[in-house]
């Protein structure tokens, strides 16, 4: 046990150092690509807190991304805030919004929760499209980061990396505390969790809010990096779906599952779009379909179970077909 924990800790450290040093040895294009992967890794890991550990499949997490992005844009452009303060406010505002929305919406279960969160995200997008302060569909320009081009690439990469590490570390610490047990108990059986003394409303709302916090941070960095945001990409349902697919593909309810999922899916789609200019999304759809049919538990499961053979895939089908 001790030995194992030490080894995992060591491996994590190595990976972290590897990730931190990697931009120093590569070109801007690759750094930018790495930044994108990190952004999705944050969102998928944050989604994992509410969707993977608590069992509430939020289909509206993009709303926190959008809120984070717009908070940064409005605060920096209209109120003259510096990025640091805008960044902090973005996460906090998303977290507060999650509490307000979560209190009524987290009373719903299963599909109904999924659709309600989807509705919240779409309603928010429609609202932002109509508000004056967000400049509707024409979007907002942000002040540019005053740095050399290379420096900018470094800045956004390391911001994303730091946010991801904070997200994973928070998740790890909470999971080993009583709070983590309460989330998993809710996922496994909410009524039983309530009856053994878990304040389920509180626990769910906190999980939702934490998930929002980190997603909001990601949105904030994204907005500053793009220097211009509009409602459509900032609130698009496809971002939500992407984070879920990444979390599921990598392994829901596992600490590093979403990170692994984000990495593999981004790399796969990048390779595909290099080779098939027009049809890459078609192949991407095919991969999602095949992955879900053959490995519904995600690649983390294959790695931890060490069962990479045909019968593993067939067993998955045998278990779930009619």
């Amino acid at each position, binding site marked *: 046990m001790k030995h194992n924990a030490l080894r995992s800790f060591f491996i994590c450290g190595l990976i972290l150092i590897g990730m931190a040093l990697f931009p120093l040895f590569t070109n801007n294009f690759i750094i930018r690509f790495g930044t994108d992967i990190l952004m999705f890794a944050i969102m998928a890991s944050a989604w994992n807190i509410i969707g993977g550990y608590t069992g509430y*499949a939020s289909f509206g997490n993009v709303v926190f991304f959008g809120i984070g992005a717009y908070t940064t844009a409005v605060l920096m452009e209209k109120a003259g805030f510096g990025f640091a303060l805008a960044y902090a406010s973005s996460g906090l505002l998303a977290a507060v919004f999650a509490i307000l929305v979560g209190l009524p919406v987290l009373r*719903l279960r299963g599909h*109904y929760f999924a659709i309600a969160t989807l*509705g919240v995200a779409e309603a928010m997008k429609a609202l932002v*499209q109509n508000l004056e302060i967000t400049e509707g569909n024409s979007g907002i320009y942000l002040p540019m980061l005053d740095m050399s081009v290379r420096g900018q690439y470094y800045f956004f990469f390391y911001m994303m990396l730091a946010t991801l590490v904070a997200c994973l570390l928070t998740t790890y610490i909470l999971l080993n505390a009583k709070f983590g047990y309460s989330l998993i108990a809710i996922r496994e059986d909410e009524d039983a969790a309530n009856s053994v003394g878990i304040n389920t409303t509180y626990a769910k709302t906190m999980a939702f809010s934490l998930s929002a916090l980190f997603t909001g941070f990601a949105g904030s960095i994204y907005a500053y990096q793009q220097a211009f945001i509009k409602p459509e990409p900032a609130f698009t349902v496809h971002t939500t779906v992407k984070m879920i697919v990444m979390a599921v593909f990598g392994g829901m309810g596992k600490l590093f599952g979403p990170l692994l999922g984000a990495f593999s899916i981004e790399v796969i789609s990048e390779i595909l779009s290099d080779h098939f200019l027009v049809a890459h*999304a078609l192949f991407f759809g*095919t991969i999602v379909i095949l992955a879900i*049919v053959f490995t519904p538990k995600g690649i983390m499961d294959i790695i931890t179970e060490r069962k990479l053979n045909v019968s593993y895939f067939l067993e998955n089908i045998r278990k*779930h077909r*009619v």
Partner: protein
Amino acid sequence: MLAQIVINGILKGGLYALMAMGMSLIWGVMDIINIAHGSFIMLGAFTTYWLFTLLGIDPFVSLIFSISILFVIGYGIQKYLINLIIRASAFITLILAFGIEIFINNAALVAWTADVRKVKVAYGASNFSLGDWVTIPTVRLLAFMLVIVIGTIFFFILNRTDLGRSIRSTAQDLDAAQLVGVDVARTYALTFGLGVGAAGAAGTLWSILFPISPMMGGILTLKSFVVVIIGGLGSMLGPILGGLTLGVAEAMGSTWFGSTYENLISFTILVLVLILRPKGILGGAD
């Protein structure tokens, strides 16, 4: 003025109802949230478009084709794909449906480009007046009547045929249905076929009234969600009531607030209904 708005809303609401009927059937029977629903509507629309453009087949006639083609597609997808993982968590089927959506949309994009197209029928612009203030576009009225016909057929299939009985029994208790001799795998495939067939019909009617493009499906899926939720799962009346409510609410909202508020209104209704009456306006409270 008000009467005209309400009538516009009802006519569009009928189409919403038809869209939601298929989604509600699939959801209710198999607990699948078919994210690809809008993509099937899109395929129905393009079936009609090509039959009209290439062969000159009247859109209303092509209804038969779009329903049958989409039925076959739906049957095949359920039988050879979704049935493989149907007993995994509902969440997994949701993502599978998402994969199907990406696939269909992008296949359509590759085949037909992102161009927006229109089915231009000669009688497209004709309309007639009712009283002094209300004008009714003929095509919309015709489409609305077809929705009623298709809905009635649906109702008949579900309640009066063996297929309907096997669908309902499977929805209520999978194992028990197997034990009385229902072929569940086939029933699932037929259910998905029917639901997707209804989406095809909705696509045909949509293409007569509005412009179409390969990416049109996303928002239609969302609208179908709204309608299913407003009406509540589990009865044929649900989608109809939900569709009409949404249609009228949107018509009123866009008249009074401007058409950019249309989506805000639909999704606010969706969230409110879910929070206040999670079983839909037909279902009981709580």
